[in-house]
């Protein structure tokens, strides 16, 4: 078996054998959907007249997917370094891109399954999400979003040496970003300066592009802009990630 195949298989087995983590990875965004869905059930956003669910479902989904990508790779890298597993890999001829590629394909799989489960629940009459005809465009958006957030996770996982640090740093970034990017509250309800500020956040573009493809809230151009921005963020974060990457805590 190739090094890539073996690492991916080992990662897959580790994932499915940890039932609790797997369950909560998928349940976590759903909790937010249920909470916000019930609070704002049947309501529309005053500024636009669109139903609240059409904001919240894509927003919570992209946040949940991004969150899982960040936490997944960050915990893995921190743990592998702490347990000297990265040192083991460092002593084999396997390249770092091969290692990251195996984690990447696992993150993509987790994210896509998360999205499918999430949308299936949001489509229930209780929540009442209606999909636009161009919903398949959400798939490439999803892949680009996971890639961008994975590269953020690489930076956090390379920097943090303990699980506590991973959780603290990742939450510090992801929770405020969720609010500022309109994942939990429609951006249309926020002051215009805040909407401008949110343009520096990757989650803003991820939300907009997912929203535009799933609910038709924007133009095809919005999806293209979102995808372009996510690629740009990926390039920047991946470059920083590869720079901060450490094989061992001791060097």
């Amino acid at each position, binding site marked *: 078996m190739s090094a890539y195949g073996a690492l991916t298989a080992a990662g897959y087995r580790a994932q499915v054998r940890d039932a609790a983590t797997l369950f909560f990875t998928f349940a976590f965004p759903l909790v937010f959907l249920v909470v916000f869905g019930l609070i704002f059930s049947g309501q529309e956003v005053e500024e636009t007249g669109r139903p609240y669910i059409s904001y919240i479902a894509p927003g919570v989904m992209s946040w949940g997917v991004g969150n899982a990508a960040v936490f997944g790779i960050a915990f893995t890298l921190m743990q592998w370094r702490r347990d000297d597993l990265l040192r083991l890999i460092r002593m*084999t*001829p396997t390249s770092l891109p091969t290692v990251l590629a195996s984690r990447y394909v696992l993150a993509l799989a987790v994210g896509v399954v998360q999205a499918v489960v999430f949308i299936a629940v949001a489509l229930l009459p209780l929540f009442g999400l209606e999909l636009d005809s161009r919903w398949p465009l959400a798939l490439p958006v999803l892949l680009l979003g996971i890639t961008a957030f994975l590269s953020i996770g690489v930076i956090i996982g390379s920097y943090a040496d303990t699980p506590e640090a991973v959780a603290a740093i990742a939450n510090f970034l992801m929770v405020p970003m969720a609010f500022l990017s309109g994942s939990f509250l429609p951006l249309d309800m926020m002051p215009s300066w805040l909407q401008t500020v949110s343009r520096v956040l990757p989650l803003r573009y991820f939300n907009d592009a997912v929203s535009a493809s799933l609910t038709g809230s924007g133009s095809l151009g919005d999806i293209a802009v979102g995808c372009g921005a996510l690629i740009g963020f990926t390039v920047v974060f991946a470059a920083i990630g590869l720079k901060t990457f450490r094989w061992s805590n001791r060097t």
Partner: protein
Amino acid sequence: MTETETVPADPGNRAADAAIHVEEVSKRYGTRQALDGVSLQVGRGEFFGLLGPNGAGKTTLVEIMEGLRQTDSGTVSVLGTAPWPRNVALLPRLGVQTQSSAFFVRQKAHEHLATVAALYGADRGAVDRTLQTVALVDQRDTRVENLSGGQRQRLAIASALVHEPELIFLDEPTAALDPQARRDLWDVLHGLKEAGRTIVYTTHHLDEAEALCDRVAILVEGRIAALDSPRGLVGAAGAATSLLLPPERMTVAEAEAIPGVDRAVLRGGSLVLETQVSGKVLSALDALGGLDGVQTRTATLEDVYLRLTSDAGHRTTQNTENTENQA
């Protein structure tokens, strides 16, 4: 013809033929000098022991040889090439015993080893062969988290062997093993040596170093304090043989008066006579009242080791004493 005959005699070429060639290597961490001008060679097929107290620089030296660390100065050549920076062509020829924590999580023993084998590009059959070698066949389907300490250690050793490397680094491989497992591992190591592998072995067990290693280097405060075969070290150290007598046999002063006795002390309930000429002293004791209750203890590698390592620790004190004696 003449040329080929002279080649082995040329020290320069012998160096190129060595499995490891370390020359004048120094490494400093902040203000601490971890290695200070270390030079050594490990021959191909040699079983080389690296001994020394904690903090002597063993780990740093091994990590430099493995290519995990860069030297500040000096040169290192491993199997004829430089290990630093990360040398992908060299890595499959090296086997490194991993930490007993370095396992892929939630994998069975054979799954972990198969993953490591794949990282090295080794064939699949290697996994079961290696599990056999380290006697983990029965734990094949046990999750790594559920292995005992000794089993984890053997799986970590298996990670170093699975791709059949030429040069193997083992770090305290018997630390968590029970006496039987320890002897079993010795057999494995003898087998590796017979198969022509080169082994660099870090240990605190001096009996083990004496039994297994062709040569040992004793590292003290970042320098090589001694480097020879265990036998050569014990011999060259001129370490005294100790004769243990029941203390009521004679006084310390009487014992020191016996020709050939270098020193006599009361230790551990015995009168201990240290001598370089045990035969002569034994016959003198025989004449002085028989050899009943007299025990002979010859020097071991441990004595040499303890003398070298405690010398370093008490160097300052001893210097003062010498000055006083001279005055």
